[in-house]
Each structure stands twice: as structure tokens, then as C-alpha cells.
């Protein structure tokens, strides 16, 4: 397994390098000039050119690429063209809200969706199944911003149980963290509950017809044990894949939720950087995103063997 893990990590290097080259080139082909954005309305062509020079944007693209790449090889993601601050520092400040939000969302989603999915499969074709599937369709269909605003209106404005916006680091206490993270996590969880519940239901349904489940029941095991120890564990592989990919998607796709709840996460950082054509920040963010996908996929693959002993690396 160690050799496999090492090989997978090694295989990620060319992937990240390719991403780095493509991102760099694609960004330079996108219309937009950070110097014009900095200079503002009254800049003359000469002033614009001088700002371009001071940012190094007047150099040939190849030279710019190798300057950036050389820094990257030393672990330096560069400096923001707009705010003049190190990209790694900016990412570090923005990643905590996103990671903690994603983790809480996944925990909430799994805690709600897996039992619901198992229940729906167990009571397949009954009103319980239909109710779970209806909830699932609603979770899929209603946009997250609608759910977010409804939760804010009801729980934050009408009932005043939670603040309407903001983020507090978990280092400042679990209470302040949760009071600001619960509503955005519930908002995000709506779609993942739907997704994981459907996947769990389908997988569990498939294994419920297997011989070993019939054997387990014939042995006189309690239904709960049959469902959760035998059926669910064997149905876990596809569910795990969905959870893992969902986590990666959460980290990279929470822009709308971060915006509605005013959470300074990496979604907002990325959008701001794209709007301002802040090349080093965009490059850093895309590299980070690619790295997260590679890592999450590796963790999912490795965890398969925990749930299914037949899988060995």
C-alpha cells in the first residue's frame, strides 16, 4: 500500500505541472489587464505602460512563465498583482473557512443522508421510500441560494437563532464557530443529502438481494445489524466515492454560499481574483484545487480497502 501511495503521489506531479502550464497560458489569452484595473479611470497610456512595467507584465510571456515557475519550484506561489501580498498567505487566510464549512457540511450530510438512504432501501416501495426520494428531488432541484435565503429569513431574521452572516474560526470556540457555520452548512448539505441518500438507497437496494444478506437474516441477526453491518458496509464503495468527490466539489464550488453568508473562503478569493485578473492568485488557486482533487481521490481509493477487504493495493 505504501508503494501504491508513493506511486500515486508521484503520478500527481506531471498532472500538476500540466495544470500549471495550461492555466498560465490560458490566463494570458483571457482579455483583461491588471495594470488597467489598478490604474483606474484617469490613467494615460504612458502611466498604464509604467504600471505594466512595474508589475513585470511587459516582459515576454515565456519570461513571465519561467519567473513564476522558478518561484513555484521553491514553493513560492508569487505575489498578488492587485493587493501586493503573498498568494500563499492569502490562500492560508481563506482556506480555513472553506475547509471547516466543507467538513461540517459533509458530516451533516452523511449523518442525515446515509440513514435516510438505508431506510428508503429497507422500506423500498413504501411511503417512507417515496418521502425520502421526494426530499431528495427537492434537494437537487432548489438552487442553494434559495435555500440559503429561506434559512436566513426563518432562522436568522424571524427567529433570531443565528446571525445572518459571517465566519468565526473554530479556534475562537465551538459555539461562535457553530452559530455562524450551521446555516451555510445546512444550505450546502441540502444538495449533498439528496445525492448521498439516493446513492446509498441504490447501493443498499442492490446488496439487499445478495445471498449473504439472506444468510445473515437466516442466522437470526437483528435487522439493524443486517442493514448497517452487512448491507451498508458492502454498499459503501460507491457511497464513499460520492462523499469524497462531494468534499472536493464543496471546497471548490461554494462560491454562492460563501457570498450569501459573507464567508471569506477560497471561493470568494477565486472569484475576486478572476474579476481583477490577478494572475498569480488565480494560478495558485487552480493549483491548490487540482492538488485537492488528487489528494481526495487518493484518500478515497485507499479507503476502499478498509470497507471492502477484497480490494488490495
Amino acid at each position: 500500500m505504501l508503494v501504491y501511495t508513493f506511486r500515486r503521489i508521484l503520478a500527481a506531479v506531471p498532472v500538476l505541472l500540466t495544470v500549471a502550464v495550461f492555466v498560465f497560458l490560458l490566463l494570458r489569452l483571457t482579455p483583461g489587464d491588471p495594470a488597467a484595473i489598478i490604474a483606474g479611470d484617469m490613467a494615460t497610456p504612458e502611466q498604464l505602460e509604467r504600471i505594466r512595467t512595474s508589475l513585470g507584465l511587459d516582459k515576454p510571456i515565456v519570461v513571465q512563465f519561467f519567473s513564476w515557475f522558478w518561484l513555484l519550484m521553491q514553493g513560492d506561489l508569487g505575489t498578488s498583482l492587485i493587493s501586493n501580498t503573498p498568494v500563499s498567505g492569502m490562500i492560508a487566510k481563506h482556506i480555513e473557512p472553506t475547509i471547516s464549512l466543507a467538513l461540517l457540511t459533509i458530516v451533516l450530510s452523511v449523518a442525515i443522508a446515509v440513514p435516510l438512504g438505508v431506510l428508503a432501501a429497507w422500506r423500498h416501495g413504501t411511503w417512507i421510500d417515496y418521502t425520502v426520494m421526494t426530499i431528495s428531488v427537492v434537494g437537487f432541484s432548489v438552487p442553494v441560494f434559495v435555500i440559503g435565503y429561506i434559512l436566513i429569513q426563518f432562522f436568522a431574521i424571524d427567529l433570531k437563532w443565528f446571525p445572518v452572516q459571517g465566519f468565526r474560526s473554530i479556534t475562537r470556540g465551538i459555539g461562535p464557530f457553530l452559530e455562524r457555520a450551521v446555516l451555510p452548512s445546512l444550505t450546502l448539505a441540502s444538495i449533498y443529502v439528496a445525492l448521498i441518500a439516493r446513492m446509498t438507497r441504490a447501493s443498499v437496494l442492490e446488496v439487499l438481494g445478495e445471498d449473504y444478506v439472506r444468510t445473515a437474516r437466516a442466522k437470526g441477526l437483528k435487522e439493524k445489524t443486517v442493514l448497517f453491518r452487512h448491507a451498508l458496509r458492502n454498499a459503501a464503495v460507491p457511497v464513499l466515492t460520492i462523499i469524497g468527490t462531494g468534499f472536493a466539489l464543496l471546497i471548490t464550488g461554494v462560491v454562492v454560499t460563501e457570498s450569501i453568508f459573507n464567508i471569506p473562503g477560497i471561493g470568494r478569493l477565486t472569484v475576486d481574483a478572476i474579476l481583477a485578473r490577478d494572475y498569480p492568485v488565480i494560478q495558485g488557486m487552480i493549483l491548490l484545487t487540482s492538488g485537492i482533487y488528487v489528494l481526495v481521490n487518493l484518500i478515497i481509493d485507499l479507503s476502499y480497502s478498509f470497507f471492502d477487504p477484497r480490494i488490495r493495493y
Partner: protein
Amino acid sequence: MQITNNSKSGSFRGMLAAACIALSASVTGFAADASANTLVAVPHSGLRILDPIITTAHIVRNHGYMIYDTLLALDADFKVQPQMASYTVSDDGLTYTFILRDGLKWHDGAPVTAEDCIASIERWGKRDTSGQVLFDKLESLTANGEKEFVFKLKEPFSYLPETLAKPSSVVPFMMPKRIAATPADTAITEFIGSGPFRFVTEEYQPGVKSVYEKFADYVPRSEAPSWLAGGKVVKVDRVEWTAMPDAQTAMNAIQSGEIDYLEAPPIDLLPLVEGNDELTVKRLSPLGSQTMGRMNFLYPPFDNKKIRQAALKAMNQKDVLDAFIGNPEYYTICGAFFGCGTPFESSAGSESLTGSGDVEGAKALLKEAGYDGTPVVILQPTDVTTTKAQPVVAANALRAAGFTVELQPMDWQTVVTRRASQKPIAEGGWNMFFTNWIVPEIMTPLNNPMLNGRGKNGFFGWATDEKMEALRAKYIAAKTAQEQKAAADELQAHAMDEVSYVPLGQYNVPSVWRNVLTGPLESPVPVFWNIEKTED
């Protein structure tokens, strides 16, 4: 076994209960984000650049007014008043002597000196257009001791005090010499001013949050505050600017008491707060902003004066402002290039624009000009609410008059880049774009950037107009207020005839604050001195 199960279940319930208690205990305090000594404000956009000299962005200018101070400042009567310094002028108008007032200190404790001010003025003069005019007239700028410095001019330039008191957009803020020595096109990296607030660098998150603390050693002037002049008395310990990209979130937050002040709520969401007796909704910027369209003079069809005139006749302000602002309470039909409510207000030549347009007149002019159907490429930003509607309304008006129009949707930053391109239309150029200015930025012939005729070295659109330059020179040479007004009126008439740009009216968005705040001041720039905060 049963007992063990119960105990597990019991311990889980206990943990849940403990978590709920902990959560509910903390929940009761969430509105206290905005504590008594801290004013939490949501500015109109996130602060990402900290150098107010390198950029014209208003949010950076507002940041500048927090931590820096100015030598002179404009008051509500458009009069220049002393701020950091007072001045005297020689009888021949060629020598201005400035003397710094007592007690001025930088945030690092060092005293403000004449050398610091000279370095700051020199850096600003390289970036600001009216600063460049000043430096064109300047023979020397020298220090005379620690507190005195002298401008010696080649020829009289009576606008020197006005230029140093300009409220927007590149404001001559004073910085320590070591910081002001940074090249004008390179951003500064140290943020030390002598203004009423100190910037808390360690809490700064670009685009998210910026924090300012009261500068204990700041000595305010004794006069009452008036616009950007007078005593800047800080009455809170700390001001936090928290950017909120979603306007609805900001509206929710001010209603729930999580923030104290919202600088620029969107007009269409104002009904949510207008009836709330815990909030005040009020216009703080007495002049507001002007929205306008600018044509590209380099390429057809707008290189033809008659076709520009046809375009102007095709449009009318009411249609644009109805689509852009909607509520007439918040807009003013105004045909003055220099803005309404200003000393140089004039409506000459704007009759069709401020009326209901003149489509037939536009058609006749197009025919007379021999318009051949060359498409008008209009840059249409889709991501900025304050510039989204104007291109669409203008395009419809132009089409109605017989123009062929190509609306090109894009994000604002692409507009910013495209409008700087002097290339032909087929190579990424453009024919028309729209933007907004706060009125103090366009209210004199000296600072209005569109009213110049310097061709490719001028404002985007690059009009070459010798008469415009001559009229500007006449204004600069004017010795009395009457002569200045006469020159400005001539400029208004000439600019309307040339269609230097299309003023599309004035709008004035109110700010919203919780009633725990008292003392927000009227000013063309949002300011945070004089505001007191009491407990809820």
C-alpha cells in the same frame, strides 16, 4: 449490556444537551459583533489596493481619508480651507508659502515635516492630471525649515489651493518622505499616515476586511467639520470595514444589528429598510454622481461630429435614469457637464437630452452625415449594477434613430481593459462605453477628465480638440469668479456641440445606518470622524 447501551445513549444525549447549551449561550451574543467602541461598516466594495496615489478607485480614496490627511480641504461651500497647513500667496501670485500647523505626527510617532510634504506632493503630481498641470506651472518647490515650504510658479496659477484641496479621485495625501519616495507607478508597502485613524495592517484581509483604530495623537482642527474640512474628531475606538459581495446579505445584516453602517445599498432593496425605525436612510453625498457615455473619436462612425450629435439627440436622460435608478427621488435630470448644484452648472445645449430626446432630429442628422450603417460597438458590463442598464437603454435609443448597434456583453474588468485600447474596432476596439463619476471629480474644467482635447494622450475616446484646450487655458487664466464662470459656460456649449461626452444625469444613493450612530457627516466622500456610537 443493556445498561452499557443506556449509558452510551445517555452520554450522547448529555453531549448533545451540552452542545445545545453552549451554542445557545453563544448565540445570544452574535449581534454584539458591532460593540460600542467599534463601528462596523460595509463599504461599497472590498479594499484590495492600499496606495491611494497609484489608483483612482474610490474605495482606495476612502481608505486614504481614513489614515492620511491633506494640506488643504474643500468645505460645503466649495471653499478651500486649511487642514494640515495654512498658506499665503504673494501679490504677484507667483509664490505660495505653506506653514504646517502644530502637533502633526505620523502614526509611527515622528513629526510631519515640510520635506515629507514635498515628497508626497511630487509623487502625487506624477499620477494626478490636475497635479500635472500644477507641475507644468511650477518653477520650484522647496522646504524652508521643518514646517514651511514654498511653491514658486513660472506664471500665476490661482487654482493651486483648489488643486491641493481636490476631494477626489487621486487626492494629494501626505505621507512620510521614505514612503513617498516610492516611484509613482509602484505601489507603496508601508501604510503610515498622519490622519485621524491608524491602519491595522495585521488585521487586513484584501477584499474582505480592513480595520482602523483611532490615532490617539491626532490633533483635530478646532473648526466645526464641513465636508472634508474642519475638525476630524474621532469618537469611536475602532472602525471595521467588512466587504459583503451580496447586497441582500448586507441589508439583512444591518437589520439584525450585525453591522452599523451600509455605505451604498442598492436602490431596489431600499424599501426593505425605509420603514425600519431602528435605521436611518439618508443621502450623505450632497452632489451625488454623474452617469455618462463616452464615444471613441478615433474611428467611424463617431469620428464624425454630426453622427455624434445624432447619437446625443437620440438619447434622453429620463429613460436611462428610469432603467438605472428607477425611483425619481434618487435621481436628477441634469444636462450640465460640470454637474448640477455646482458653481459651474449650465444646461446649455442639453435640451433634447434633458427632454424626451429628438429621434427625428437624430435621423435627419444621420442622413445629412451620410451614415453608412457602420456598427456602433457598445461595451456592456454585466456584472456591475451601476453600469449595467445604461448601455442597453442607449443601444435601444440609437437603434430607434437608425444606428446599427452591436452590444458586447462582458465583465467590468474587460471593459476597463478594452476601453484603453486605441486599436480599430475589428482588432478589439470600441465605439462607446459608460461609466460614472462622483460630481466633485468632474465639477471644474480643470478636473473634468473628459473635457480635454489632447488626443491620444487624453481620456479614453481620445478627442483631439484645439478649441477645447484653448477654452481650458482661458479658464485657467481667468482671474475672477465671473471670468471663470464665463469660461466654464463656453466650455459647456462647446462640449455639447462637439459631444465630448453624453452626460446622462445625476443620481444620489443614500446610506443606511443604525440609530445607535449619531453624527454621520455630509460629504462627497464617506468619512468616519464625528460619528458617535451608543449601546443598543
